[in-house]
């Protein structure tokens, strides 16, 4: 059992070793052979081509986290649609109703988010009051 397993995974291991080795060799070679002329501009962190504005380690607006969270939530829910689609024909109307229920519950969550103002980037004063 374990012998077979090792044999089956051997190519994967070799692949991994080759990939790691190659990148290590390339990095070492370029640092050995290449020319180094560092200037102030070159050493700056790369920020999409524009001049860096400041340190990245500062408090971010909580809105970003909210959006990221909502995105992940709905993204993960969407993943459940794939296995469902795969067995859809076998499940027939039962599968359809089940998924309908699921989406409806999800929709309820969406309506809640919307009305709570979680999707507004700049909530108005009244909405902000309601959120508290």
């Amino acid at each position: 059992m374990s012998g077979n397993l090792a044999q089956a995974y051997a190519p994967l291991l070799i692949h991994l070793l080759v990939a790691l080795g190659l990148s290590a060799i390339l990095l070492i070679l370029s640092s050995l052979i290449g020319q180094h002329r560092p200037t102030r501009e070159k050493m700056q962190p790369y920020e999409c081509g524009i001049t860096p504005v400041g340190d990245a380690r500062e408090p971010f607006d909580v809105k970003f986290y909210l959006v990221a969270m909502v995105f992940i939530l709905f993204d993960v829910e969407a993943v459940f649609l794939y296995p469902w689609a795969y067995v859809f024909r076998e499940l027939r109307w039962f599968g359809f109703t089940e998924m309908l229920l699921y989406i409806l519950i999800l929709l309820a969550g969406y309506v809640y988010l919307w009305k709570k103002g979680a999707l507004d980037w700049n909530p108005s004063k009244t909405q902000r009051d309601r959120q508290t």
Partner: protein
Amino acid sequence: MFPPRQDVLRLMPEIILSLSGILLMLIEPFLSGARRTLIVTLAALGSGLALVSTIYPATLPGTAFSGLLRIDGFSVFVHVVVEAVAFLVIIGSADYLDREKIQHGEYYALVLFATVGMCVMAGAAELMTAFVGLETSSISTYILAGYRRDVPRSNESAMKYFLLGSFATAFFLYGIALLYGATGTTQLARMTFPTTPGRERLLDLGLGLMLVGLAFKIAAAPFQLWTPDVYEGAPTPVTALMASGPKAAAFALLLRILATVGAAGTFWFWALWVSAALTMFVGNLAAIAQSNVKRMLAYSSISHAGYILVALAAAAASDQVELGVAAVLYYLAVYALMKLGAFIFVSQLGGESERHMEIDDFRGLAVRQPVAAACFALFLLSLLGLPVTSGFLGKFYIFNAALASRLIWLAVLLAINTVIAAFYYLRVIVVMYMRQPNQTWPPAPMPWAVTFVLSIAAAGTFYLGLFPGRVMALATQAALSLPGR
């Protein structure tokens, strides 16, 4: 392909709870102004209806949804306990939330969702279903623990609970994976001892990891460290919920695994024995040193988990699990009522932002508010296990089960611990009855909702202490309804 109609009926309490939770979330943002009454009424109605609808699973025993759930007397008993807790907590929370200015529909929705999770745990006949139930109840309670958003201690409570709880859940999940590897199924009833050589260790390891995960949820030593901080920081009505509901559900799951999977009884026995002894001593000895009532009650809830573990060990030790299981179920009902009563009382006495939580703050309460003080004294005496109160009979049945399984030493330790516990429960009563009251404070108001919850808890404490016959018969029936090894 549609599930048969009776399967849906068997799931009725869960369906009602989920629907009312979703409804609350939906109407919350649309309401403004005089919404408090509507929200509280809806939440109470939802949990009350769920409690009533438990009659469906009670009359339709059997497996449901292709063997994912097993509806039997056992699951119905735990359903009733958990739903009653939710109902009482919802009613008992309203005034507290008003005072702390956190009266939102989400709070009640989360309580309802947590209850759904506990109900699923009680009926799960399969480990993935149990896991989903565990997660639903845990995640809702993590949020509830941090519900006082502006209070750092509440945030600390939620954070600690979340991090440690996630670890525990991971242990539980890993255990499920190993059990699946060892037996090739997640159905509890089909988990027989593996015949393939080398798989027994895997089975033991899986069972061990699952025990660790669940021991965390019931706050059994040595996994109890989170309990005092989390219970103290969480809003007090939420503490009432956490101490009674999820604990009962986790114990139910432990019992079901213990009764169904043959290997669990033999493998868990010593772990349960040691953990029971440790939990009782850790909870009681630490409770003596507390000056904060809420924290003291948190430690006392640890020690009570220890008492219940004694009955669990008794169930694991003998071939006749019924005696132990019935003792656990009876104690869960008893414990839920008295602990809920004590915490709801403290939530009201604590005053705005839970200022008056020191034992010293309770001095002279008997003079200023005699009825309230008597009520709290009743819960404390019941927690201590004085005759006439339900706590006594609960302990008696556990004692009985331990002796029937020949766990003499564990029974002795239980008796010793009851004596230790007397010290800190009686201290509060002494402070309430024999000290001069503090005149500068206005007496704590007792709104009718809180009075209602406290009277039910007090009445239940008396009823279970004086007339145990009916409930004990139900508990025994429930224990016999388990599939058996």
